[in-house]
């Protein structure tokens, strides 16, 4: 049975698209056929992060409106076997995604894929609600910072009251916390909320902690999901998170400051 996983956050710019690309790729790498859907209508970006921006012909809204078939709109990833991308429309607005339309497309995707990863737009309005409505699981992407944590809690409230599972009184959407842009040095300096702080406040199971890393920007410059870079700490952290998502036990890494040389520390070097 296909699983629908929404990657959501409330607050913008916290790393939803980066995480959707990494996690979708990781699932496919492990042999699960996966499609990543860009729900950010009007602000398409998943195509850039996945490096397939020049191959977009049709989009999600075209499929909903019957202007293209799913096969015409799906883009096959060139690097990872079993991975597809369904791009968002760049020219329509959020109202183009209707509940019936999205339901119809998801039903068709469920026949073909093991995992459907939904990259949510920011906010708590209609676009974000549509992305999470049909979800079986939710990855709540949070930065260790006050407004991001508060917005994550609000999106949890919406998952618990406005998702299809909540509406129909089924088992609740399975929630996962993904803490990104984590900077252990700043945490030990008392300048940044710690993993434990955020877990205390949000009280949902921790899927992973992704360190703040230059490699993420490099990966997006190149249009390659960072999980493909096994040298990068952020890539390794995403790999662990995917394993945990699939039910494996992985100890959390990269929570502590990297040992730095005395001189580097003197010069104020930070990971």
């Amino acid at each position, binding site marked *: 049975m296909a699983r629908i996983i929404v990657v959501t956050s409330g607050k913008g710019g916290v790393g939803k698209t980066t995480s959707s690309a990494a996690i979708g790729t990781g699932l496919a790498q492990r042999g699960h056929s996966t499609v990543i859907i860009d729900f950010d209508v009007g602000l398409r970006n998943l195509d850039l992060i996945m490096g397939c921006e020049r191959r977009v012909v049709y989009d999600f809204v075209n499929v909903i409106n019957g202007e293209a078939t799913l096969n015409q709109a799906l883009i096959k990833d060139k690097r990872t076997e079993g991975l597809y991308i369904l791009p968002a429309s760049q020219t329509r607005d959020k109202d183009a995604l209707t509940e019936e339309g999205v339901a119809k497309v998801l039903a068709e995707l469920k026949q073909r894929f093991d995992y459907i990863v939904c990259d949510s737009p920011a906010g708590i309005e209609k676009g974000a609600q549509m992305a999470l409505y049909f979800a079986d699981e939710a990855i709540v992407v949070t930065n260790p910072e*006050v407004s991001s944590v508060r917005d994550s809690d609000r999106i949890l409230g919406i998952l618990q009251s406005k998702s299809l599972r909540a509406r129909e009184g089924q088992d609740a959407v399975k929630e996962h916390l993904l803490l990104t842009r984590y900077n252990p040095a700043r945490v030990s300096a008392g300048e*940044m*909320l710690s993993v434990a702080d955020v877990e205390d406040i949000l009280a949902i199971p921790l899927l992973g902690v992704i360190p703040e890393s230059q490699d993420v920007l490099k990966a997006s410059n190149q249009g390659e999901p960072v999980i493909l870079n096994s040298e990068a700490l952020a890539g390794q952290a995403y790999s662990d998170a995917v394993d945990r998502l699939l039910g494996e036990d992985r100890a959390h890494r990269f929570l502590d400051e990297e040992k730095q040389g005395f001189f580097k520390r003197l010069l104020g070097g930070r990971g």
Partner: protein
Amino acid sequence: MSFLDYFRSKRPASSAATAKERLQVIVAHERGQRNQPDYLPAMQQEILEVIRKYVPVEQDDVQVQLDENGNCSVLELNVTLPG
């Protein structure tokens, strides 16, 4: 007070600790409001206006809360009157 305590007590709370405290308060407050019916804020406003006809009170002197107890709900109204 020992020598070490002197330094400890001078040290201000870290900004992360302040952030956590503030978040705990606001998140608890917002969770409390989450399950309340949509009419509650408007009702609270009207109750406030009625009270103001008789006593000068501020916005946050009137607290309205709805608690569910199984099959009945209790509307709790707390008004702080000026002394």
